[in-house]
């Protein structure tokens, strides 16, 4: 699936990007802005939950796992208790961190993330949830 096809499908969606590292969060948000209609960035699980309630709901959630105050997995559970996002992706440097078979999220991504992985994630999202 080429980028333009993905763009067509995602340009109307809103995404919540959560990462405690600014050096990752900023380019990540910038990247997502090219595809999504609206991108909201949060520093940790707590911040993300607050922003979800204030600006939500978001169709797509992209979150880091290990973060101070509230982890990514806790955040997902909390969001899921009030609504059902279209697509949830978690990213971590620690492969052992996440049970890949869990139903809590749609995709697990290893950090650092290759360009192709980013495109693959978006393609999977489009193909499974938006076609």
């Amino acid at each position, binding site marked *: 699936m080429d980028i333009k096809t993905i763009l067509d499908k995602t340009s109307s969606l809103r995404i919540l990007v959560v990462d405690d590292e600014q050096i990752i969060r900023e380019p990540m948000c910038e990247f997502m802005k090219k595809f999504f209609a609206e991108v909201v960035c949060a520093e940790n699980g707590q911040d993300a939950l607050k922003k979800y309630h204030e600006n939500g709901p978001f169709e797509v959630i992209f979150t880091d796992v290990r973060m*101070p105050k509230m982890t990514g997995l806790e955040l997902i559970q909390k969001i899921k208790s009030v609504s059902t996002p279209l697509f949830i992706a978690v990213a971590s440097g*620690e492969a052992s961190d996440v049970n890949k078979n869990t139903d809590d999220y749609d995709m697990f991504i290893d950090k650092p993330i290759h*360009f192709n992985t980013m495109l693959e994630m978006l393609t999977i999202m489009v193909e499974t949830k938006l076609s």
Partner: protein
Amino acid sequence: MVHFVNSFRLSFRDQLMYGLGFIIIFFLSLFLYNETKRINENTRIRAIQEASEHSQALASMAKTWTMSNDYAGLEEVLDNFSIYNDLVFATVINLDGKIIAHTSKEFLGMYISDTFTITFLKQLNDYTNNNPEIIWKHGHYIDVLRVIHENKIPIGMVHLRFNEHSREEQIDKNIQDSIGFWMVYVTIVMLLLYLSVNTISIQLQLLLQTIKKIHMGNKNIRADETGYNEIALLAHEFNTMLDAIKINETSLKETKERLEYAVNGTQDGLWDWNLQTNEVYFSPRWKEMLGYTDDELPNILETWSEKVHPDDLSEALKAVAWSHEKPGQLYENIHRIRHKSGQWIWILDRGQTLFDAEGKAFRMVGFHTDITKQKEMEHEIKEQEERMIAQSRHIAMGEMIGMIAHQWRQPITGIAMEANVLLLDAELGSIDDQTIKKKSNEILKLTQYLSKTIDDFRNFFRPKQEKDNSKILDILHEAQEIIGKSLDYHNISLSIQSNETQNISIYSREMLQVLLNLIKNAQEAIEQKMKVGGYIHAIVEDQNDFILIRISDNGGGIPDEIIKHIFEPYFSTKSKETGTGLGLYMSKTIIEKHFFGNIDVHNTDEGVTFIIKIPKIIE
């Protein structure tokens, strides 16, 4: 010595005899001389006195007959005088010089002829009052001339001659008798003296022989206590002394035996150095220690000094010289000595210097202890320790790589994301110079960060031997730089607190290793308990002479039965994958051996606290 004295000196007895003999002969001679002189004098006086008396008697008797010119009566008087044995002659002379009476009849009627008598006759008037006689001695003879006077008028004179020869012979005989008596007397006295002195001398000789026998080894003999009082007393005192010596000897023997047992028991080698002659007594065990028999090594200092390892000799000699200067100072030195087989053996050499009254060293005595086995064991332990240190370094490096992974994951992810944005822009054809510049700078910034973390780690691994000046606070911050990301990753907070005001001199790399180890242990304890809100507090207290570092955590603590073993090597409570059992052992080793401090641990309400105490050294 005794023989030497004998050959040069007279014996006591001879000396006494010669001395006494000389004194007696001297005084006897003096006595005899005086006695002879006295007898001579007395005899002479008596002879003159007698001569004078005879002449007086004759003059008195002759007076009447002379006045009456009765010569026959005179003859009768003179006949009476003939009874004196020593009378040579007696004569009466009238004023004319005619011999009117004479003991020898043939001279009667003759006139005197010798000038002396004639002169006397002429001067008769002068002798009437004062001194009516002249007495003189010539040869053996004594002559007396006496005036015969009537009412102070001289009427004639008498002349008598005595022969003193027989009397002098008598005197000589008397003197000879006297000398003979004294000679016999002195001989008897000397003989008695000799016998008495000889008895004393014999007793002394006996005592001397007793001493000689004792000297030759007969210890049980005793001096004869009979005989003269003083000698008996001497013998008695000698025996008393002998008993005292025997007791001392027994006690000395016991002491010597005890010492021998002790020395043999310890298997130490004895040496005894005479500093004046440089002679050294080495005990058989001393030589045996070096693989030699007793007669194989000479008793000189070089036996030792030439075998000492060249690297150790100067230090050993320095220690020896030092002990020669300080009375009461014990000598101790460890050095290597070459064994007969060529191997080096380690010797613990201990001794003491003896000083004379003037404070001059004159003797040195000590022991050699073979400590080769201990040294080898020490060496083995040291090697083992070194192996452990190396091992712990490898493990620490492994742990570091884990930490680096944490440290790097985020910036690398950041770099990847920046690249992703650029690639996306390129794909979309919306790329512009502004974005390229901005993203490239972001990437460079992140690579610099990566480079810095590399430096941090490399700094840690560099085997820095020298001390540097730093604060514990700085080292804790360094540790935080290294392990901080890993702690963040596990949601563990690390707080650092310090009241340090100045730098201390410290092996900062080793301190960093210790602090990282403790922080990492705390982190792992917290992780194991799956605790949320894990924390580690590092508090540095700058005290007067010490620095105290407390590392506390809320990891749940260590069970009491385990806590006392945690500093032992290869002891670990962690799972086999993470624990090596060397971390705390190494930390303790470093703190004690390199910082001369100590490390302790105790449980708190929430976890444990490690306390490091090191002396504060400022340069």
